[in-house]
């Protein structure tokens, strides 16, 4: 079994994004997706702090203090990019104008529910940021995450046990072991598997029933 590396997962997502889409990438592996979009494919990145057309990080001597992404890291702007305020930025998100949002998650349920903002209901000072807006608002929500937790618990589940971010929002999940469509009325459908991974091995590491396509 040869699980996908983080870079491979990011590349796999990037490969599925067509030219012209407006895309918001969450923190972590999702952010890495940008580096894997082919240079000749125009994908327009949105950052919830008011940027469209976000480009890669600048070299250290070219940092512009006025230009950061949602993770507060220095970024650049591509020609054709634009700036706007927070209400307009979230109007884009909540009004269904983003073609895609890619987020990490603690759990994804077979009905598309996602839990990615708080690990327990008694969490000290939970922090939600824009996750609920993005999950509820984007046209499509894809999740990229490890297939299981560090101690081996499945993250593809029947019902989320952590506090929810949004209901029925996820349409696709990319893990280090495979790619899954979330199909209404059916659940997780296996679209792709990492090299050497079998359906049985995948099912064993999942907390919900997996389905084969067709």
């Amino acid at each position: 079994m040869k699980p996908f590396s983080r870079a491979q997962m990011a590349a796999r997502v990037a490969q599925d994004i067509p030219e012209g889409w407006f895309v918001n990438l969450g923190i972590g592996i999702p952010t890495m997706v940008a580096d894997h979009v082919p240079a000749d494919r125009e994908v327009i990145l949105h950052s919830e702090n008011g940027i469209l057309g976000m480009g890669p990080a600048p070299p250290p001597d070219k940092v512009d203090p006025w230009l950061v992404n949602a993770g507060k890291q220095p970024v650049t702007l591509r020609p054709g990019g634009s700036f706007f305020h927070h209400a307009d930025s979230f109007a884009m998100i909540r009004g269904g104008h983003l073609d895609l949002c890619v987020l990490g998650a603690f759990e994804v349920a077979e009905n598309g529910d996602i839990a990615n903002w708080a690990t327990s209901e008694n969490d000290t000072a939970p922090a939600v940021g824009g996750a609920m807006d993005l999950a509820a608002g984007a046209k499509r929500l894809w999740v990229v995450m490890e297939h299981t937790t560090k101690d081996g618990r499945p993250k593809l589940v029947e019902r989320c046990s952590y506090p929810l971010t949004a209901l029925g929002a996820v349409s696709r999940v990319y893990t280090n072991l495979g790619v899954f469509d979330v199909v209404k009325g059916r659940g997780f459908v296996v679209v792709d598997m990492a090299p050497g991974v079998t359906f049985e091995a995948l099912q064993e590491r999942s907390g919900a029933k997996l389905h084969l396509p067709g």
Partner: protein
Amino acid sequence: MINKIVRTMAEAMAGIRDGSTVLIGGFGAVGQPDALIEGLIEQGAKDLVCVANNAGTGRTGLARLMELGRVRKIICSFPRSAGSVVFEELYREGRIELEIVPQGTLAERMRAAGAGVPAFYTPTGVGTLLAQGKEVREIDGRPYVLERALKGDVALIEAWEADRWGNLTYRESGRNFNPVMAMAAELTIAQAMHIRALGEINPDHVVTPGIFVDRVIHVDRGPDWA
């Protein structure tokens, strides 16, 4: 390469269906997408619901579209302006439906549609004919009317500058309803006085980011408007 700039009016109008709700920008003649309205007349879609501040003047543009019997209903704030002869005829004869909406409610309903807000409360219209049949609710001791988002299938707008990603700027009071309608429609089509190279519009000065725009066509109104 993303290129939202189309060369012909036929391309600009492609796919507009009968029965569509069409948002039409402009305030009077200013910022009104005249060429696109002509294009829509040419294109042939009928049974339309048109949303605009006014109900057309003279016998061209929106008035012509109505005169041709292509408009089932008009949603506007001020139908009875100087020269709204076609609308008045049709309205008297009961051949067009009218939904009259306070101007700010009209703008806010479209902004809401663009921002994912299905309904909101407003003080405008409380206790008037225009609130009849609508939910009224007291919030912190003051009554408010519940208004619904107003979404378009198509928006026809006019811009000052545009680039191939669909970024737009407007000129002076030509801005009016255009940016709001751009965000409220499934298919937003802009006519623009000037086409700019990508990156030529200062990113701090873009008013409508390209995410709200699907097609752009270059329409120069001529030297009077330059």
